[in-house]
């Protein structure tokens, strides 16, 4: 069992920066877990604190039920792949992979065999005698992964695993990583600033901001039901539309139109309350004709994104015409794009709209609990 549990984990740097702020998090055994957030949100610090490269200022970290808070990195049974892969340039691929085994005093022959075996699993056999400088970026990454795998750690930590690869290779490596993690079944935590990467790879994601976790959930959860406007704006290749709204007669006044209050929030709003209405551009249907329950506006920008286009509409602000109009983005399938200057109507799909009060989601459902490990066993507490 190698679940990771963090309690009240805090890291304050000597210069006073609070990189982690009393953070609680549980990562289940065998889980592929993403730490996602903008730069400076503390995600890398969290990863490095799990690794032991940073010493926690408060709280504790347990790995596989063992308190490792004060253990040095070498005694935590974790392996880390750095963003730059950190391969030793003066050693061959084989020696690089065998390095952790050499430190663990395994004899030369067994560690050579072990390295060759691991390299074989990752398709590196032909490269064993090369030096890192002679490898492509993707190959270097595999060598770094092999080095991490060779000593069978309880936990893999990956720091921005895909960011040093070019766009095409990145997709390939993403699929490869996900398959590898599934086959090995080792608890894996990775850091990324790319929400698409996190959604694609992870079993669960922790979205971080300013040293705190803003939401933990499966990719579906954080995409469909962001717990707050920060997550709503961060997740998704196009950020969620967030529009000011006011409750009137059991309906929402949004940009000059009346929309129904989402079901889950119906009993939790009061008349006259000012809220934020959120809906993803993907969950809006564009229509060139007036439609019932539609928001209308003027098309200002059309961005072609291949099989679909992203259309930006400027809307009049209903109740206060003097304020500049709010903008709304909508995804329109190919062939149906409007021209800039057209007037268009957009209809939110039922059940896909969310309401935020003071930045937090208004809903009946309790925040999702920690799911059981993928293997079916319970996460260790």
């Amino acid at each position, binding site marked *: 069992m190698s679940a990771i549990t963090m309690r009240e984990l805090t890291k304050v740097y000597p210069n006073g920066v609070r990189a982690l702020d009393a953070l609680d998090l549980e990562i289940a055994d065998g889980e592929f877990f993403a730490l996602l957030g903008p730069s400076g949100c503390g995600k890398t610090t969290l990863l490095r604190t799990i690794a032991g490269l940073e010493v926690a200022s408060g709280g504790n970290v347990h790995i596989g039920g063992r308190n490792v808070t004060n253990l*040095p990195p070498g005694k935590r049974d974790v392996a880390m792949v*750095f963003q730059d892969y950190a391969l030793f340039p003066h050693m061959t691929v084989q020696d690089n992979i065998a390095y952790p085994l050499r430190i663990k005093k395994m004899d030369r022959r067994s560690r050579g065999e072990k390295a060759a075996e691991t390299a074989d699993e990752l398709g590196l056999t032909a490269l064993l005698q090369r030096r890192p400088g002679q490898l492509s970026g993707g190959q270097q990454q595999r060598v770094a992964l092999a080095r991490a795998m060779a000593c069978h750690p309880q936990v893999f930590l990956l720091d921005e695993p895909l960011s040093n690869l070019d766009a095409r290779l990145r997709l390939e490596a993403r699929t490869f990583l996900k398959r590898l993690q599934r086959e090995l079944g080792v608890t894996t935590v990775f850091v990324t600033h790319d929400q698409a990467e996190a959604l694609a790879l992870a079993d669960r994601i922790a979205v971080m901001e300013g040293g705190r976790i803003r939401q933990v959930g499966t990719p579906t959860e954080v995409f469909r039901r962001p717990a707050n406007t920060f997550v709503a704006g961060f997740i998704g290749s196009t950020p969620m539309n967030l529009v000011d709204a006011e409750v009137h007669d059991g309906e929402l006044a949004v940009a000059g139109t009346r929309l129904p209050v989402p079901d889950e929030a119906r009993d939790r709003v009061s008349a006259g309350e000012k809220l934020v209405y959120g809906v993803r551009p993907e969950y809006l249907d564009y229509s060139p004709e007036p439609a019932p329950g539609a928001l209308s506006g003027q098309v200002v920008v059309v961005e072609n994104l291949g099989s679909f286009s992203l259309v930006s509409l400027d809307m009049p602000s209903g109740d206060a015409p003097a304020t500049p109009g709010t903008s709304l983005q909508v995804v329109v399938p190919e062939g149906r794009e409007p021209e800039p200057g057209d007037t268009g109507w957009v209809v939110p799909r039922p059940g896909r709209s969310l309401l935020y009060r003071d930045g937090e989601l208004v809903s009946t459902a309790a925040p999702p609990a920690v799911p059981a490990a993928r293997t079916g066993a319970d996460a260790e507490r």
Partner: protein
Amino acid sequence: MVEGARPVTGASPAPDAAGLGRARATGFLVPSMVLILLFLVVPAVWTIYLGLTNYRLTGLAAANPQIVGLDNYTRALGDERFRTSLVLTLQFVLGSAVIGQAGLGFAIAFALRDRSGPLRRVVEAFVLLSWILPSSVVAFLWIALLDRDAGTLNALLGIPGTAWLLDHPMLSIIIFNTWRGTAFSMMLYAAALENVPRSHLETARLAGASTWQQLRDVVFPRIRGHVLTNLLLISLWTFNDFAPFLITAGGPEQRSEILPVYVYKVALSGGELGFGAAISFIMLLINLVIALVYLRMLGRRKEKA
């Protein structure tokens, strides 16, 4: 040259990057060549010539020196005092340059590598101070520190009357030169250590490597070129360093008479300029051998990489 642009002079399109042409390029070089020739090559050749004569500072041989062939060299190699001096010099180089300056310099640089702020600035300031002070001043400071009767060290330790400079002359000048020259190595290694990626050290730490293993597997392979260059420079400087003379004057009983001091005594105090020149030339050859050994090691490293 920008495509389409024509050379300024029509006569000969210059093949060099600056577009000077051979003649003008030579013009720029000549003044420095003349200076080098005048102040470096001529004295060197003159020294080689002197080494083959019985030239003296005073007396008959000063007015009319005779060529004596290799006599000076055979005399030097057979001279017990020369051989002792050579051994002392090697001890001095090994002790104060290789072990002292390079070792201590690296240790300080490594200890301070991740630090910033007042501690680092203070240490760097002190180490640099010993480097920028003139030798004569430093020598005086060390005499004041190590003096038998009124020395600071004896006062601090409460053991008046210990004659450090008489009892341990070699140790004294080795520590003196280490103190004096560590700054250079420290700064060079501090710059070199910046080239060692953090992630490499951290990978080693995660594997459980000790500090020594991190140095062996990550740091030294990275900074090997810097180490060799540093050792080359400080070995040569130390080999030719005359400053110890200001502290012990080679004594007592020639127990700290390193080669530069020996040459000085023979040539200027003893007046045997010819013999001194011969020893100088031998020193030059030894320096050359040291330089070649280091450069070989450096070159071999480059081939492998």
